[in-house]
């Protein structure tokens, strides 16, 4: 019988079936960061256990680090304490840490693929929900909690039930000015924020197949926003060329052997799925969220929907969203005034995202009263962008050019919304309070759309600027 990538990866990593009926699944790559691990290391110490496979464990600092001044000690004593714990734990357990001095520091989901650590056919875990990102290279990648981080540190395994599999096919061709971010927001809008519960998503179809690796990373990143346990794209020539020459990818003849194995892990023709969903790529226009979860989105030319047009159980959330955002049903999203523009995050903090934003930034200056931040996803992204002069374009247009970190995606450092500020953001969540202010408001969109909002001061159709 034809098998899927999920079947093959699952079988290859199954240690045994547990008495509970779940699978004891080996985790091939464990990525860790400073926020969700100190308690796990403490538990490990209390159990007097070592890290089971230190060679398969890598750490970085991303969530709490400042993006303006990264000199130690950090100005925020709590951030400094978390950093110190990370350094101490990594040293004590003999694990490599990609810190600022390494030149390889960055958001964990940006550096994994960038360094060639994340590879096809692997199981990957990290104490962060956006671990689904790594599925873009053809891995099965799970976000986990801290007690599960302890399990992976101690046993290199997780107790898991195999998810069902839904193939999400995006047909046709995308229009100019429509990006991977618009595609994943359209998918989440169609399938719902809990539509993926119980499923892994396999992204396929001509639009996905033509995408670069960075675009696929954006797609897989937000699988979790659709409720899916993980999401992946089958490894192909794009995957193999992306990995060639990366520091932690196999080199020389070993690379060719690896490439052959990677290709062999792809879903076979004729494989069956628990469900298949389809979208017409040509029908997608630049997408903007208007509400308080990533499924509440519309095309930039559309009007904010009315709660009364929703099924009864959805209406209270729609009303709450309108009240929080200060919007009215029927209002166009285009023209909504913004206070802050943020380009960055594990969703859209890679080089191609910065290029797309710079293309738009060239056409104007940041509007008066708008605070605009560009936060590269990693030190290497920052370096590559600077080599192309992108930082000069941003600075000339009035954007702030920051250092790598999670930043205003979740507001754990100084980069926060103030009061009810409205943010145009290339990040992944528009939850109430997400960007650091309990009353702050977030409009999710592509990096190009964020740049367009930054220079006009309002939500703008980027296609009108690029034309």
């Amino acid at each position, binding site marked *: 019988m034809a098998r899927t990538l999920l079947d093959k990866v699952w079988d*290859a*990593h199954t*240690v045994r079936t547990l*008495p*509970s*009926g*779940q699978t*004891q699944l*080996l985790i*091939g790559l464990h990525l860790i960061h400073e*926020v*969700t691990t*100190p*308690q796990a290391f403490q538990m490990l110490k209390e159990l007097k*256990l070592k890290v089971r496979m230190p060679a398969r464990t890598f750490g970085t600092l991303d969530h*709490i680090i400042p993006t303006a001044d990264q000199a130690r000690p950090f100005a*925020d004593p*709590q*951030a400094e*304490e*978390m950093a110190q714990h990370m350094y101490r734990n990594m040293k004590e357990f003999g694990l490599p840490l990609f810190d600022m001095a390494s030149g390889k520091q960055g958001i964990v989901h940006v550096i994994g693929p960038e360094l060639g650590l994340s590879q096809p*056919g*692997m199981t990957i875990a990290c*104490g*962060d*929900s956006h671990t689904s990102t790594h599925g873009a290279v053809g891995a099965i990648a799970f*976000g*986990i*909690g*801290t*007690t*599960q981080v302890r*399990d992976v540190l*101690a*046993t290199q*395994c*997780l*107790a898991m*039930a195999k998810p069902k599999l839904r193939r999400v096919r995006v047909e046709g061709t995308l229009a100019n000015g429509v990006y991977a971010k618009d595609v994943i927001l359209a998918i989440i809008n169609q399938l719902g*924020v809990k539509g993926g*519960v*119980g499923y892994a998503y396999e992204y396929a179809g001509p639009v996905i197949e033509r995408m670069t690796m960075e675009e696929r990373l954006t797609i897989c990143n937000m699988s979790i926003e659709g409720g899916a*346990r993980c999401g992946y794209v089958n490894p192909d020539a794009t995957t193999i060329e992306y990995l060639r020459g990366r520091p932690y990818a*196999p080199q020389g003849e*070993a690379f060719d*052997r*690896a490439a052959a*194995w990677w290709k062999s892990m792809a879903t076979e023709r004729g494989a069956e799925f628990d469900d298949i969903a389809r979208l017409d790529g040509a029908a997608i226009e630049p997408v903007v969220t208007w509400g308080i*979860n990533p499924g509440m989105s519309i095309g930039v030319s559309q009007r904010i929907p009315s709660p009364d047009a929703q099924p009864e*159980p959805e209406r*209270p959330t729609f009303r*709450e969203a309108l009240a929080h955002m200060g919007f009215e049903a029927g209002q166009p999203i285009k023209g909504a005034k913004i206070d802050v523009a943020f380009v960055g995050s594990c969703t859209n903090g890679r080089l191609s995202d910065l290029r797309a934003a710079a293309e738009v930034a060239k056409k104007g200056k940041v509007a008066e009263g708008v605070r605009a931040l560009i936060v590269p996803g990693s030190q290497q992204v920052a370096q590559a962008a600077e080599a192309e002069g992108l930082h000069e374009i941003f600075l000339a247009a009035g954007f702030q050019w920051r250092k790598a970190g999670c930043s205003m995606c*979740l*507001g754990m450092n100084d980069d926060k919304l103030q009061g009810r500020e409205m943010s145009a953001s290339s990040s992944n*969540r528009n*939850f*109430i*309070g*997400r960007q650091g202010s*309990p009353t702050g408001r977030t409009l999710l969109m592509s990096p190009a759309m964020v740049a367009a909002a930054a220079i006009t001061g309002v939500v703008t159709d980027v296609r009108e600027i690029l034309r």
Partner: protein
Amino acid sequence: MSTDFKRRHMTGRGIPLPGNDIDTDRIIPARFLKEVTFETMGEHVFEDARKQNPEHPFNSPAYRGASVLVVGQNFGCGSSREHAPQALMRWGIRAIVGGSFAEIFFGNCVMLGIPCLVASQEDLEWLQKAIAKSPQVPVTVDVEKQEVHFGDHAIKASIPDGPRNQLVGGTWDSTAVLLEAGAAIEATAGKLPYVAGF
């Protein structure tokens, strides 16, 4: 494993929290995560939501000391932060009944021995109203029988077999169970070409 770990059934007063898609940022905002332990999490559960809404159930004296949380659809979506179930647990929650749960949140709850059971929309609305009317009446969450009892009334509430077996059998604290595989872990790793270096 000690019987202390078995989560066959638990009884306590209920607390209804209506609404769908309540995310883990809402349960505990990120600014409270800058801690190297979970100790203070209970103090900040729903902090922003409680400040913005004095009527929030977690502010109500009627529900103080409650341990069975009754929620809507897609509870715990978003961030994987275990700080969210830790905050609920440290506030006093021991079991959750809802329409559906985000999977990482559900898994984190299992790791803490907190059962999350799924009930129908109709039954949830009934249960939330019944608790609001009589908050002193104890609620029993029977994990083994997959039922929730309130007074003389019982509703069906399901939990998948794997986690149910872990909770009922007391094997939810999984490190010991996973360690039992012993050398089979390295044997599985040894067969993977990427571990061997191709």
